[in-house]
């Protein structure tokens, strides 16, 4: 399943031109992502849709770090995404902080919630890990649901809608959807850069080693529990940031963002795009959301159609869309 293993890839002997081209793309993947982010709203002229592709893509990216690279399937990532969104919202509404501080609060919120969930969940594996994260995420849901004064309970938390934002002294019109897209894209670009660094670092090799063979990683001298916790916390940072961006974009945090379906969404997008691949989560998010938007124009049963597409993908392209493309072009 592992498709893009940074030094490993560079390590494997060079072969066809197609492979070499892909290796080149791999080496400059952040640059490539940047170019793509620049032209994406031109390809997809519905800017609001392009924005949620980015926020959900970033959410799936954070999930992928744990699922695709470390090999832990969490069913509770909504707590990190929604929790980040709420904490960003609470900072903006109740503390009246500037927008960027709200995003920072949401990101750190994701980190904190990941730490708290992680410290309990990392002791378990496989299905137990999935269940523990699911249960803890439900606790987080309940907590935010009950704290009506802070979160608005079932009505969700309304954020002050930002009309202009101040970026390093520059006043930007945040109502303009393209401007808004590029502001959010800047955060996504930074995230991709950071993820790329993490994957290419010694720690990036450690998490792949743990996925490949936990006992061996331990015998090599790696503290598997702590490595897992660190990966979970990093994942929480990406998901918290994604939630914050989503909150600012929608100007509301619906309580469903913490729900179990949101957790499932990360799994679906990641599998659809290709787990353990750099671009897979964004491909998955884009395909899922574009499909949802297209199909829901024609029928209210869009979930059925998306579900069938998902099943076909999982059955026939178990590597996911991006994962399969990589696989075929490398053969």
């Amino acid at each position, binding site marked *: 399943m592992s498709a893009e293993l940074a030094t*490993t890839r560079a390590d494997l002997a060079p072969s066809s031109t197609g492979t070499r081209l892909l290796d080149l793309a791999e080496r400059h993947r952040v640059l490539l992502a940047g170019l793509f982010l620049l032209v994406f709203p031109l390809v997809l002229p519905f800017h609001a849709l392009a924005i949620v592709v980015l926020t959900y893509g970033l959410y799936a990216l954070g999930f992928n770090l744990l699922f695709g690279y470390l090999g832990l399937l969490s069913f509770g990532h909504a707590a990190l995404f929604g929790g980040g969104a709420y904490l960003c919202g609470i900072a903006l509404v109740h503390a009246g902080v500037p927008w960027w501080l709200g995003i920072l609060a949401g990101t750190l919120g994701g980190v904190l919630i990941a730490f708290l969930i992680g410290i309990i969940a990392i002791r378990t594996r496989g299905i137990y890990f999935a269940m523990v994260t699911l249960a803890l995420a439900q606790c987080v849901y309940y907590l935010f649901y009950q704290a009506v004064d802070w979160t608005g309970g079932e009505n969700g938390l309304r954020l002050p809608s930002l009309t202009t934002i101040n970026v390093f002294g520059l006043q930007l019109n945040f109502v303009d959807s393209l401007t808004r897209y590029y502001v959010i894209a800047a955060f996504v670009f930074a995230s991709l850069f950071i993820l790329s660094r993490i994957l290419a670092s010694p720690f990036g090799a450690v998490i792949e080693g743990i996925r490949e063979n936990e006992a*061996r990683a331990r015998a090599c001298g790696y503290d598997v529990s702590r490595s897992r916790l660190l990966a979970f916390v990093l994942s929480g940072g990406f998901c918290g940031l994604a939630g914050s961006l989503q909150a600012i974009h929608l100007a509301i945090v619906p309580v469903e963002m913490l729900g179990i379906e949101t957790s499932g969404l990360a799994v679906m997008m990641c599998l659809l795009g290709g787990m353990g691949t750099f671009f897979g989560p964004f491909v998955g998010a884009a395909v899922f959301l574009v499909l949802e938007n297209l199909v829901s124009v024609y029928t209210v049963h869009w979930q059925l159609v998306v579900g069938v597409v998902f099943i076909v993908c999982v059955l026939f392209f178990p590597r996911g869309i991006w994962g399969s493309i990589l696989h075929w072009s490398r053969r």
Partner: protein
Amino acid sequence: MSAPVSDVILRTDSVGRTFGKFVALKDVSAEFRRGALTSIIGPNGAGKSTYFNLLSGSLAPSSGKVTFEGQDVTGLPQHRFAHLGIAKSFQITNVFPQLSVRENVRIAAQALKTRFDIWRPRAGMAEFLDVADELLKTVGLWPRRFELASALAHGEQRALEIGMALASRPRLLLLDEPTAGMSPEETRTMMDLIVQLATERTIILVEHKMKLVMGICDRLLVLHHGELLAEGTPDEIRRNETVKRVYLGQREH
């Protein structure tokens, strides 16, 4: 490298291990000398792997004490052992299958130095690649370094595992049946490698085929039904009546 032979690197004081009610190992006290190649032998199910796992930290003993270089290591978490200077290869092949051969050893080489480094590019850390290449030459896998570990033959994977174990520069190397499942040819290569490695470090080798280790090891421990049956030089073991009866008698002659 080579210390006085009388120096004890590792000792166990009446260690035992039970699985539920089953006693897999009972009251084993032994000393392992620094610089020596010691073999632990015994028929299938004798408790060799159980004892091995107590020495290498994969299992905590139910009773007794393990001391490494004067330090009590009983029940320490597995990952601490590599940091202390003890490395091992498993009875069942244990590599990172979907990573390249070189990356397998490189990950092992970086383990003690870069634990939670999430920022610097590892491709630029030449020291670990150098260690990996050097060790791959030692175990004879350098020509195949760019292949996936899963593409290696069984014997080669065992050799790779030893390369990974060596990456932490251990003072004590523990090997659990490194020739298990190998062809006679692969077995010979492996035994040659072990003899070569033994010139520079302390090795404890688990093996159930006694003939294989008789000629190469300095000392032997014989386990039987979870108990230490005998201990001594190969000659002493060969002459030992009890060993002949329960072990040589039934398997080799």
